[in-house]
């Protein structure tokens, strides 16, 4: 692997410039964290001083207490585990099936032309509207939740990956044909590798979409999972648990997004 040359003897101006950039970066991070901490502190204070009703709005210390209690009896991990597994299965399946469908449509432009209006309509349709139907068809189980999650991401994946496939430089395809390459080789040597950034990007978007599908699915049928928790405790007005679940969801989504960003860096070292 190639490493960018590191300048050893840098001028004073360059050093000052690097210093400024570093300071700016530190400041940005500092303010980002400060906003987050201030938000929770304000929330806590407001609840303690009675500015807001903690029964309706909850408060960080009560959320923490609820979290600790659930962590001790293990139910917290079970709910997180369920949601995490359903979401990962949903976005991985959505991305894989979507990419395979895009390959099919790229391969046969006739099928692609026929499918186009259906894709456009399905893309604008809110997929969560299909959740009750899926549950009736597939039953009250995890399979239907994963299917809902998959449906939320698969159409948009097909459309964006197919678009990426079609935007590959025709001359690069010609290059493969010049060497006598087959259509399969055009796909494997040029079209697919050129679109790995596009597919990783779809994966990133699908994390968020898959969460939507899973939570809606869990609202409807689940016996565990964060979506189930939100609905179940929400009905009993245990807002501490609801708020806690939302915060955990935010952390999970952010972690997965970062994970895929790391994957991107690993795969795309050939980019400038």
């Amino acid at each position, binding site marked *: *692997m*190639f490493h960018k040359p590191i300048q050893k003897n840098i001028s004073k101006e360059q050093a000052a410039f690097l210093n400024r950039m570093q300071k700016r970066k530190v400041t940005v991070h500092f303010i980002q964290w400060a906003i987050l901490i201030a938000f929770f502190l304000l929330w806590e204070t407001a609840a303690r001083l009675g500015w807001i009703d903690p029964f309706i709005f909850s408060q960080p210390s009560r959320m923490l207490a609820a979290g600790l209690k659930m962590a001790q009896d293990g139910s917290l991990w079970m709910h997180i585990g369920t949601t995490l597994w359903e979401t990962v299965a949903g976005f991985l399946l959505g991305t894989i099936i979507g990419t395979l469908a895009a390959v099919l449509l790229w391969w046969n432009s006739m099928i692609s032309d026929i499918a186009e209006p259906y894709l456009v309509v399905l893309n604008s349709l809110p997929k969560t509207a299909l959740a009750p139907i899926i549950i009736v068809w597939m039953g009250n189980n995890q399979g239907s939740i994963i299917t809902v999650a998959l449906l939320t991401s698969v159409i948009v994946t097909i459309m964006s990956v197919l678009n990426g496939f079609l935007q590959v*430089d025709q*001359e*690069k395809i*010609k*290059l*493969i*044909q*010049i*060497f*006598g*390459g087959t259509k399969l*080789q055009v796909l494997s*040597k*040029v079209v697919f*590798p*050129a679109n*790995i950034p596009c597919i990783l990007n779809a994966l990133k978007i699908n994390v968020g979409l898959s969460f939507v599908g899973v939570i809606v699915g869990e609202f409807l049928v689940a016996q565990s999972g964060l979506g189930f928790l939100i609905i179940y405790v929400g009905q009993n007005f245990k807002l501490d648990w609801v708020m806690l679940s939302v915060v955990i969801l935010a952390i999970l989504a952010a972690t997965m997004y970062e994970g895929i960003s790391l994957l991107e860096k690993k795969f795309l*070292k*050939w*980019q*400038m």
Partner: protein
Amino acid sequence: MRPIVSLDDVSLRYHSVSGETLAVSHLNLSVDSGEFICIVGPSGCGKSSILSMLAGLIAPSEGSVHVEGEIGYMLQKDHLLEWRTIRSNALLGLEIRNKLTPENTAYVDALLEQYGLGEFKEHYPYQLSGGMRQRVALIRTLAVRPDILLLDEPFSALDYQTRLSVSDEIGSIIRQEGKTAILVSHDISEAISLSDRVVVLSARPAKLKKIYPIHLSLEEYSPMKAREAPEFREYFNAIWKELDIHVS
């Protein structure tokens, strides 16, 4: 000697929903083994279509195309695949043809060394200059040991200075490797300095206008030095006139 490449009364039509276009009309041309010829013509006249027919990518609508030997084709841009290292790019053709034998990869490594890319083998294309990238593209073409090289304005994407040195370099490499070459260009100087014969085509549909055999009095030939030959200007003016380019 039997020509290695010949076009006999070749015509080519393109079909699209908006209509039919005649790109090439009754073209006759033959090229001998080891010859370097250059096809010049107004832009969009169908020069690239001729190369595509020679490479077997499209079939002529009328007439016949004969090619004896392996074809190597160099495109306008280098089209190196950004996600592959330089070495892996140079091996692309062999990989597609399933000919990644130790002997062939050793040949590619030798070419990379010989043409100054040895230490860049494991680099990625974005780390190389335009001229170096074009050299990699040439090595990728040479890797499959073609007998005939088709070059479709392979220098047009480079800036003027790089272009001069790269065309000099690549012209010399092709001569050195003893290949037959057919270069398409719209640069008259480049055509004269590189080739044995310059073929002038008309505007679309491409028809043969005239062929100029190039004889330059030079002690030692190189594409760069060719530009200083006394006959250079005469050829230039004659071909310029023949091309009949109107700037309006």
